């Protein structure tokens, strides 16, 4: 911690400030390099040829450039199908969870629903349960419903399990909207549905955006629920398929690295596009 910054008004000599700046960039830069190195390694490995990796090792500098690894992961490794599965689960789940969570949060935060605090905490409590307690019953439940090994089961459990947290966050956000805005609408004769769609929802947009970015990555990255309710390889989302790839292409590091890049790309894109919302979302959930 050579570079702890003191925002003191007391004058410092230019030399000391320069040392501080250099120390800061040295330590922060070193940290960033450490953090980015594994990512750089996987990017480099993904464009190397198998022979190159086999001859020089995974840790060596590249001696080749080819997109063969990507082709193998995408076509032969079934990652195309898996990526589509992931999106087929993630997008409806995000939309449905946020729709359901926002109506519940709206009702609980803007109306005197009986037992509203208890309901709110019950819902949050459901999300905090360790998923392990649910795995066996959920797999049996989806079997009973005839949904086992189908993406519907995955959507169902993801929505049910995630809702509590989103309700809690949105409730906190919606409660901070001044009641006068709603009263004006009531006087103009607006019903709850209009108040929800025309007033509260547009005002809650920042929180909704943050939660969408966040839940997209969570659901897209999930492995445990997927391998609990799915069985067939062609149904599996990208995380599970990546594990399959690892078994299928043992020590073909260029293919496995390419697969990891494909699996990470969508969430990285969402992150880069919605970085601000994303970080805000993490804080919204936690440091309220």
């Amino acid at each position: 911690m050579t570079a702890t910054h003191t925002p003191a008004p007391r004058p410092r000599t230019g030399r000391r400030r320069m040392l501080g700046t250099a120390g800061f960039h040295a330590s922060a830069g070193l940290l960033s390099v450490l953090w980015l190195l594994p990512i750089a390694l996987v990017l480099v490995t993904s464009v190397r040829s198998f022979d190159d990796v086999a001859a020089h090792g995974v840790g060596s500098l590249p001696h080749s450039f080819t997109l063969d690894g990507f082709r193998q992961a995408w076509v032969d490794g079934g990652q195309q199908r898996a990526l589509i599965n992931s999106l087929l689960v993630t997008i409806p789940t995000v939309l449905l969870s946020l729709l359901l969570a926002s109506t519940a949060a709206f009702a609980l935060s803007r109306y005197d629903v009986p037992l509203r605090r208890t309901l709110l905490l019950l819902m949050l409590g459901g999300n905090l349960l360790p998923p392990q307690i649910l795995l066996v019953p959920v797999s049996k439940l989806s079997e009973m419903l005839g949904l086992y090994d189908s993406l519907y089961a995955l959507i169902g459990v993801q929505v049910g399990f995630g809702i509590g947290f989103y309700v809690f966050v949105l409730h906190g956000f919606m409660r901070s909207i001044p009641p006068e805005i709603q009263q004006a609408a009531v006087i103009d004769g607006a019903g709850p549905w209009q108040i929800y769609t025309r007033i509260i929802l547009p005002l809650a947009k920042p929180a909704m955006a943050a939660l969408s970015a966040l839940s997209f990555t969570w659901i897209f990255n999930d492995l445990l629920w997927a391998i609990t309710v799915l069985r067939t390889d062609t149904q599996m989302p990208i995380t599970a398929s990546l594990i399959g790839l690892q078994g299928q292409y043992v020590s073909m590091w260029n293919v496995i690295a390419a697969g990891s890049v494909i699996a990470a790309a969508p969430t990285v894109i969402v992150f880069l596009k919605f970085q601000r919302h994303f970080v805000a979302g993490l804080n919204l959930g936690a440091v309220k």
Partner: protein
Amino acid sequence: MAVLTAPRKETRRRTEGRPPARKRATRVPPVVLAFVLVPLLAEAFWVFWPALQGFYLAFTQWDGVSAPQFIGLGNFREMFGDAVFRTAALDTVIWLLLFGGLSAALGLGAALLLQQERRGVGFYRAALFLPVVFSLVATALVWQAMYQPDGLINKTLEAVGLSGLTHAWLADQDTALYAVIVPALWRQIGYVMVLYLAGLKGIDPVLYEAAKVDGATRWQQFRHITLPQLSSVNAVVISVIVIDSLRSFDVVWALTRGGPYHSSELLSTYMYSTAFQSLRLGYGSALAVVIFVLAFGVIASYLVRAFREADA
């Protein structure tokens, strides 16, 4: 917790809510009730109802095909003699302490370093934060490449003359668990950092100025201003970390599946393989109950905090 907080709230509502009459309609429109009930039913169907079943199944013996057989505390009694359970429980505790402790400490350290508004700080923050969006499976595979016998870690050790330390990191029972913790940390630290950055931003700079006037050293400022001011963030970070630790599954499953010889087995991976690979659904459910009991204290305190918040 209800007993502790409820009276406080009642008095407050009475004092502020009474005079300008009740602003909210006392009668809740049916559509609003539906707004709550539909999501609640969805959660009840996929979470509460299965959870109750999970607790029941913990007291049964079940192969998933024939009817579950009630055996009382039999599963829990079996755990006492189960060496794998002991390993998994111990590893879970190590995981909690190492993964939890280090991600909190290093996350705070990174936040303290990167809270300064200097040129380039946005880049540094993004670099540390980027892994947070990766799936733990992708993270695990990235690190598996690093851990290979001819991977970057061993090559680096050789290059700096420490070839005696080179290792088959994931295949060695002594190192597997720790080798799995590292990727988990790599991903978690950025997340914890974000939480602390927000907390640090919320501290009134006047406090530091006053301390400086009094001649407090940096350590004293950290000890007597920063840490106490961060107490609410600390509570959140600790809850998040404990819950995450007990849930940790993906990274271990992708890297070692709990092996070699259960040396990196966590309760969560053991639960999964017992239930879905050995098809001992009753014993697996009992292991899940153990995880629940371990998490319960954290969940309860999280809810108490949430209760106060919902109140305020």
